[in-house]
């Protein structure tokens, strides 16, 4: 049951010893402030590192080809490796259970015009899955779909900046733009968080590009994302497996560093995660250490309080206070001081982060902040810390004999 009387007693006691309570709270407040500040900074660093990946899904693997540099199985060095549709199908079937999304890609630079407006843009012919790998966000209309690829339709999904350049009004979808002299129907407009260059892109179906440019089945690049079920080391192993399978398929020397190039985000991600873990560990360690100092401080002062209040506690016991009441009184006072002080630290820390957060971007700290979960966790830690700090003083207080009330000092 919530005992108002008990809380009234505690508030009275804190109020009576305002300076002391303030001082003991100060260490805790400072500990939490420091922790929140450091934690926010750590998060800021973390955000900066992860930023590099925001353009693409962070579980992507990009596969490109180039010329071999070693002779192998009777084939000469300097042979050009060219992916075709059948290679795409090969990968798709072989690693079906490990692939989340997969797309082929042909990239070209094109001149585009619409009535009097014109410009040069990047042209990417892709499968529908490309949207998810590149994290393309559809603003208007739709993305390339399966039937586009099947029917080799001349449709285009254009970037926000392409639309800005070419179209003077908002009437975009359904109009025809001219790409290298061939009309394409605009079916969608997209955003991309990867920056302006990623928004100066035009997407078309892969099959359309193959038909128009040489009527072949060549592809420049294969991009895929691995299944989210794969752990970091499994994902790295998966990248290696793809490289081996393709090298075998194209008869490239296993030791050749060229020919097939697999860029696996898992590798970079692992390095970043490791670094973040280390940073977080250091911060936790410092925060925990400071909090410990705070707990010791509160505990110390509570012991002193109990000593000073020995007579009062004795009188209370003589008047009929059960030992459990005395324990509760001291323990809750400690918890209250710790929690309130901790919250002051929390609010101050978050406030400082908010105030200076923007100006720290040039130091690789982006959007430093603490999450709601951390705050919940901190509350829990503070209550536990207060209880720990109050434990010994409360035990000491409960051992005071009521007989001291009769003693005269």
């Amino acid at each position: 049951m919530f005992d108002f009387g008990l809380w009234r007693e505690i508030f009275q006691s804190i109020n009576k010893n305002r300076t002391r309570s303030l001082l003991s709270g100060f260490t805790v407040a400072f500990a939490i402030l420091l922790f929140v500040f450091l934690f926010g900074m750590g998060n800021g660093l973390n955000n900066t590192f992860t930023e590099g990946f925001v353009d693409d899904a962070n579980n992507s693997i990009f596969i490109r080809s180039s010329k071999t540099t070693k002779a192998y199985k009777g084939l000469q060095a300097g042979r050009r490796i060219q992916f075709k549709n059948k290679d795409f199908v090969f990968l798709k079937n072989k690693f079906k259970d490990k692939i989340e999304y997969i797309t082929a890609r042909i990239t070209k630079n094109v001149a585009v015009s619409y009535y009097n407006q014109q410009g040069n843009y990047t042209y990417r012919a892709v499968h529908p899955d490309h949207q998810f790998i590149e994290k393309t966000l559809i603003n208007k209309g739709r993305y390339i779909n399966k039937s586009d690829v099947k029917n080799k339709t001349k449709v285009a999904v254009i970037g926000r900046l392409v639309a800005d350049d070419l179209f003077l009004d908002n009437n975009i979808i359904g109009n025809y733009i001219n790409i290298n002299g061939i009309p394409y129907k605009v079916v969608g407009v997209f955003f991309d968080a990867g920056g302006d260059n990623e928004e100066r892109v035009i997407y078309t179906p892969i099959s359309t590009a193959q038909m128009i440019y040489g009527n072949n089945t060549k592809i420049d690049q294969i991009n895929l994302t691995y299944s989210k079920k794969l752990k970091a080391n499994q994902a790295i192993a998966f990248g290696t497996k793809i490289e081996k399978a393709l090298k075998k398929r194209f008869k490239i020397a296993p030791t050749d560093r060229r020919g097939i190039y697999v860029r696996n985000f898992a590798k970079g991600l692992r390095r970043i995660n490791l670094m973040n873990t280390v940073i977080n560990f250091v911060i936790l360690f410092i925060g925990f250490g400071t909090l410990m100092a705070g707990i010791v401080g509160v505990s110390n002062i509570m012991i002193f309080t109990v000593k000073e209040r020995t007579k009062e506690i004795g009188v209370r016991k003589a008047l009929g206070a059960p030992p459990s009441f005395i324990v509760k009184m001291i323990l809750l006072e400690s918890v209250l001081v710790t929690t309130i002080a901790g919250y002051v630290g929390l609010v101050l820390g978050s406030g400082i982060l908010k105030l200076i957060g923007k100006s720290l971007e040039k130091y690789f700290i982006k959007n430093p902040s603490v999450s709601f979960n951390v705050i919940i966790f901190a509350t829990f830690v503070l209550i536990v810390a207060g209880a720990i700090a109050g434990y010994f003083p409360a035990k000491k207080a409960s051992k005071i004999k009521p007989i001291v009330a009769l003693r005269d000092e």
Partner: protein
Amino acid sequence: MLQIKDLHKSYAIGDSSLHVLKGVNLAVNTGEMVAIMGSSGSGKSTLLNIIGMLDEADSGSYVLDGLAIENLTEKKAAVYRNKFLGFIFQSFNLINYKNAIENVALPLYYQGVKRKERLELAKFHLKKVGLEKWSEHLPKELSGGQKQRVAIARALAANPKLLLADEPTGALDTKTSHEIMDFIQHLNDEGKTILMVTHEEDIASMCKRIIRLRDGVIIEDKEVKQVRASQYV
């Protein structure tokens, strides 16, 4: 009201032990006003501590209002003290950051009486000791006599069966002492049983019965003609 039989108590001092109470027998009836006297070291404080359940005897029996006081846990002792006993201390022992009415209400809080009700009761008792106008004052704003009256109101608040006073006038001047004794006598007239420890003969003579202790045994137990304190006030 109170029966004590063959009470023994000794304290360990280093390797040896100090035998403080050596077989005390005492019976007090309802409505009595008893002074326990003796020089320091006679065991009078120890006896009061045992009666007040602040300490436990080594052997012997203690029955208070028909209830055997034995095998006390701290919790049980606290409940009994709260229910049966009212304490008046030499140094008043008011809680210095609580005002008069809060001090008086404290024993009622430990009885689980609701705040509104206990403040009403406390007000009633403060009125009884003539301090209702001082109810919002802190102890440091009161004189010694007023403090002791607040302490008496506090002792009365829980309506105890027995009032225990440990040198209640020890920290007061003669005039104030007599005022307080007058007040205690009035309480006794109303039927409260009172037991007090004192070493002042004139204070003891204001009780109805004097018990003298020496070296842990009762050497004298006599009824006296009560000197009314009101004649000095």
